[in-house]
């Protein structure tokens, strides 16, 4: 990492040490992501590193296995529904919290962010207990509901941050020019906070697609992709999981690039 020192001067020894340290920490962060790539292309019967040769056999195994494919489609459908639900509900809630001035707003705000604070394992068994009573275990729709709760705080935070910086007088101007409240929001506000909406939707999608614990409790025998991976990992470490890992890493990279291009707030630091 090149640090912007004063031009024309060699880097001080302290700076060099800092750069070396940062590079090492980065290696620690990226090594586990890098390691799954060669393994996924292994030609070996079982997990070996370095692989004795390279092939696409584990990719073929993944694509030709109906259980893996069913789990993948299930996770995709759940993630898409979660994205739609969480983005709509979260945006409404963000509007209500940022624009409203009603009594109890502080409590609403607390409830909106509480799913972030309650550990997922606690929420999972709570909703498992509830859904078991309604015979909803094993339904993908149940997982969508759980994942939507899980994703809502992200949407509320990102859209809320955008709304706070948005000048509400523009909306009033539109209303003064004859637009209805709804028209003003739809034609003036929403287009301007679109980057935040896109980021929020992307994050909701990933948070659902990657989620294991809620899906593990609510899914029953209808396993999602993370649950299928979890089962395979606990049985034996074999390279099909590496294939899915590579696909997930590629998907996340794509989503992050799209969010950086079209979205806002993909970088959680201001």
């Amino acid at each position: 990492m090149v640090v912007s020192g004063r031009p024309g001067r060699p880097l001080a020894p302290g700076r060099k040490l800092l750069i070396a340290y940062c590079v090492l920490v980065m290696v620690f962060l990226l090594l586990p992501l890098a390691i799954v790539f060669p393994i996924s292309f292994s030609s070996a019967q079982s997990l070996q590193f370095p692989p004795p040769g390279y092939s696409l056999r584990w990719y073929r195994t993944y694509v030709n296995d109906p259980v893996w494919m069913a789990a993948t489609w299930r996770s995709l459908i759940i993630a898409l529904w979660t994205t739609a639900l969480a983005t709509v509900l979260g945006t409404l809630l963000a509007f209500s919290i940022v624009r409203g001035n009603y009594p109890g707003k502080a409590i609403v705000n607390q409830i909106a962010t509480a799913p972030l604070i309650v550990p997922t394992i606690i929420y999972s068994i709570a909703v498992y207990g509830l859904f078991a009573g309604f015979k909803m275990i094993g339904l993908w729709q149940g997982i969508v509901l759980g994942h939507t709760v899980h994703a809502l705080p992200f949407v509320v935070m990102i859209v809320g941050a955008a709304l706070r910086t948005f000048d509400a007088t523009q909306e009033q101007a539109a209303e003064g020019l004859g637009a209805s409240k709804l028209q003003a929001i739809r034609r003036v506000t929403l287009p301007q906070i679109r980057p935040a909406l896109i980021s929020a939707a992307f994050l909701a999608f990933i948070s659902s697609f990657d989620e294991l614990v809620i899906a593990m409790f609510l899914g029953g025998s209808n396993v999602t992709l993370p649950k299928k991976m979890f089962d395979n990992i606990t049985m034996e470490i074999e390279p099909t999981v590496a294939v899915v890992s590579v696909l997930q890493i590629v998907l996340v990279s794509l989503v992050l690039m799209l969010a950086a291009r079209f979205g806002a707030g993909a970088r959680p630091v201001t």
Partner: protein
Amino acid sequence: MSAGLLGLRRDGPAIAMGTVPLLFLLLLFVYPVARLLSFSVEGGNFAHFEKALTDGLYVQVFLETLRIALIVAAICLVLGYPLAYGLAIASPLWATIGFAFLLLPFWTSVLVRTYAWMILLGRNGLLNRTLLDLGIIDQPLALLHNRTGVIIGMVHVLLPYMVFPIYSVMRRVDRQLLSAAEGLGASPTQAFRRVFVPLTLPGVFAGATLVFVISLGFFITPALLGGGRVMMIGVQIERLVRQFLDWGLAAAVAIILLAAALGIAALLRRLLRGDLTWS
């Protein structure tokens, strides 16, 4: 008409928009969690809490969880503070690259990363084989299915949570204060230690508390990298529900975990006076 009613009428649209999502959260979040927690006092007594707080097994689980959370937070701080500093003073290009490298693992599923660590840390894993080949060790190190493995995996997941708040505080530190300190005769090291570091302590508190609180509720990483031998609260709750069907005890343990998490989060909010701008 009273001012309150006027206010309500003006806020009509805001209230209307919030109704459906609020009902959704009340029905699918607040109600099930409250329902679960109520199981802890079923029978009208505190027997489950008594068991959770006095039974040697559960006391050990709590202590082990606290110990791991503390170690993870400490390691994240040692790794994260210099990294945040490097990012804060890097040129825009390198800062962008650094953040991309930080965000990619951040958004990659915990499961994928845990799987990768199992490959790296096993007895015949990449790390042990490299160290053996280099002659640094004679015997493979036990890195998997024990506390060490769990800590390595958790640090990997939680490091970004340490870096983000520290970075955001570092960016806001007025650089001229450092120049002023140097102008008054401090060496660059002294200026860094006595001026810069104290100014960034709010970020350190925020990051450390965040990492600590999230650590308490961890489940996937200890379940897989601990190999059933590292008992953290999350793993224990899952076991109580799925294996022993003991919802009452699970609820009592969950309440204790939740109280710890909420208490520390509230403390954090007070320390930062609600300034969680990084999130």
